[in-house]
């Protein structure tokens, strides 16, 4: 059974990895998706399900970090319009 602090730690790692993307869209998506994903599974009690969800989260963390490296190699040249202050 995965401990609560591990789950919180995984959530933080995902959010912090997602913040590093130069692309506005992916950044917002990872933030939204991690929070939705964790909130959806918030009330799980079955240990096997909790472990499954945790393993899935870990995989996604690896994906995020791998894709981040690719995106950092080709940063966008102009800022997204959503990032420009009005």
């Amino acid at each position, binding site marked *: 059974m995965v401990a609560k*602090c591990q789950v919180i730690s995984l*959530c*933080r790692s995902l*959010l912090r990895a997602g*913040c590093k993307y130069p692309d506005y869209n992916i950044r917002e998506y990872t*933030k939204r998706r991690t*929070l939705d994903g*964790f909130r959806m599974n*918030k009330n799980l009690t079955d240990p096997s399900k909790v472990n499954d969800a945790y393993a899935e989260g870990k995989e996604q963390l690896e994906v995020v970090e791998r894709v981040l490296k690719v995106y950092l190699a080709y940063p966008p040249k102009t800022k997204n319009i959503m990032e420009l202050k009005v």
Partner: protein
Amino acid sequence: MASLSATSLSFKAPSIQSTRISQVLRKPSSFQSISFGGFQSSKSLRLQISCAAKPETVQKVSDIVKEQLALSADTALTAESKFSALGADSLDTVEIVMALEEKFNISVEESDAQNITTIQEAADLIEDLVQKKPAA
């Protein structure tokens, strides 16, 4: 921290007010000595009762917390209000910490983030990190 800036305030204050203010200010900080010349931005002559976080920081933190937890604008947030009392669970706390990191452009460690339970603690931690950052 606040007491340091408090003494530096009393030295800069005009002579008429200084006696009154310095009397009031010297009461809590009996161990004060010469100010080291740390140039902290003490904007106005404020009596800083809380130890080490500026009221502006606490206000900014409260605004972010209100926004994240979708509280109505007139909920009274004191510096001592706990996040859990405001209806935030641990995920909300993580989100609040991330929003604070983004707003103040700091980086909070894992261990520090787990210890934040009230608004005052968050403001203190932020002040610490903001001061350490320019020195690095």
